[in-house]
């Protein structure tokens, strides 16, 4: 499962109906999801969703296009533990994990959507969040 922490900014929405917009955006993708948390606070409508891990990047991209802010739980690579095998690379849908020219693992934090698909694939348990 992948946990998405979404906020629909206060200045963007006019009424509570806009909450449906978030849900409608996801419904269009035909992805099963669970609403874990829903509340209204000074920053806007905050929603916590659980979507299938492999769908996180798809959902994230769609919602970001719709102006919804997403708090990413980006990963961290423990370089002491990493052995540069690269098993995580093929599990990353956004290109946040790749090799540099010396075949050393490179992590681009700004590309990470926090799907965590790579975490349990690391044989060295070097990926944390």
């Amino acid at each position: 499962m992948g946990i998405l922490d979404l906020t629909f900014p206060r200045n963007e929405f006019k009424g509570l109906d806009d909450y449906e917009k978030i849900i409608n955006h996801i419904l269009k993708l035909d992805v099963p999801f669970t609403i874990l948390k829903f509340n209204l606070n000074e920053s806007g409508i905050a929603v916590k969703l659980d979507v299938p891990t492999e769908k996180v990047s798809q959902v994230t991209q769609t919602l970001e296009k719709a102006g919804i802010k997403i708090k990413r739980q980006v990963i961290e690579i423990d370089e002491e533990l990493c052995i540069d095998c690269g098993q995580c690379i093929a599990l990353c849908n956004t290109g946040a994990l790749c090799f540099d020219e010396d075949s050393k693992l490179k992590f681009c934090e700004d590309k990470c959507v926090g799907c965590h698909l790579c975490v349990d694939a690391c044989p060295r348990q070097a990926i944390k969040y």
Partner: protein
Amino acid sequence: MSDVSKTIEEINQKINDGSVCVVTAEEMIKIVKEKGKKIAANEVDVVTTGTFGAMCGSGAFLNFGHADPPIKMEHLWLNDVHAYHGNAAVDAYIGATRLSNRESDRGEFYGGGHVIEDLVARRIIHLKGTAYATDCYPRTYIETDFTIEDLNQAILCNPRNGYQRYNSATNSTKRTLYTYMGKLLPEFGNATFSGAGELSPLQKDPTCRTIGIGTRIFLGGGTGYVMGEGTQHNPNNDFRTLFLKGNMKEMSSEFLKGAYFTKYGCSLYVGFGIPIPILDEHLAESCARTNEQIMTQVVDYGVPRRTRPKILDVSYADLYSGEIRINGKDVKVSSLSSVRKARQIAGLLKDRIKKGKFYLTNPVATLPDDTEFKPMKVRSEVKFVDSIIKTAVTCNVKDDIKYVANLLLKKNTNHIIVIDEKNKLKGFLTSFDIARGVAKGLNLVKDMMMKKVFTTSPNMTVAEARRIMAHKDVNSLPVIDKNNRVLGIITAEDLLRMSKH
């Protein structure tokens, strides 16, 4: 220029006087490309190789010395990982894949591979041993801490390392698989592979002309030796393996790393490299084999059988490109082995030879070329669904109640599988559903059928199918292929008939 012909002794003489020409396997590819194999064979004396991957067939013999009073340990644990003792009193073998005790506070991610890494990293290891007392070994219990320096011997001893080839793995099923080939996402979501391609030792001397019993190698940062062929050595199918050993006290945790593969277990990443002497043009040629020329196959780990279906042939160049094409879909592929480390090993070995710290060896004997890799001999074969499958009675979603009621009587069955024009599974009907349909005044199959259908596949074991039937409380299971097409049916009556009791 006459044909090149060198001996190991001549090469060692050059190492001794500092005139030896050593290059890594990657450098050799460029040299042969530029100058041709003849000149390359003349100029280059040694090509160094390297690989760094998870090698489950690894372990270590340790000798602890004697306590006072002495003990013949019957069971012993190193950092809560059970080690094997079945030989002389204070020797033990720690295997890389052994997991720590369930109740250990080291957690499930720790195993024999990690103990070996901790040993070579000079970390403190906790030992616990139990025994039955004898007149010569009266002690029954021992608990102590030690480091590798306290041991008499710590010998890395790996019965099966350095596979010549590895398959690449992918997954056709609808669920994520966790395997020794790593995490495989559903519906060909990714693929994984092992080996170091053009840097791999056994790819550079594929018939093991120069690699045999006694060959000196780079192992785990220190020096090691080939003890002979590894288990499952299968030269006829180009699946050679090596049995390696080396003194762990000289090794470094830089090149021996414990690993834990989620829901599979522990292993040990081992770094080793073999120097290939360029005795003639043939060896120059094989040492120049590129990733484009080194082939392997992608197989489907979604089929949990001994022989997994092949999906396609690929080269290591395809695999290193990061993407392969399966059934018209681009599939991301990544390695389980580290190319960076493999390159580092080939470089270190090259330096050691150039500096006169590492000499080449003539094998004492060559590896056997007639062994085969046979499957396990089992007394009773496990039965699979495809052995009891029978033709299913089917109907179409558009059929009406009268037709299916007649079908039940005519075919003398209780189960009808509902399909579409393409033979794809749409639903399931039993006589009960039809009776209920009559009671409710329904007329069409599509309104009466059960849409949620539990299914099986030809490669599922009969035991697993029986478990599904019992668990889901159904009397039959449609057998479908991976495209949801109906192949047949299995029923509880067939299973009953099968069992001897």
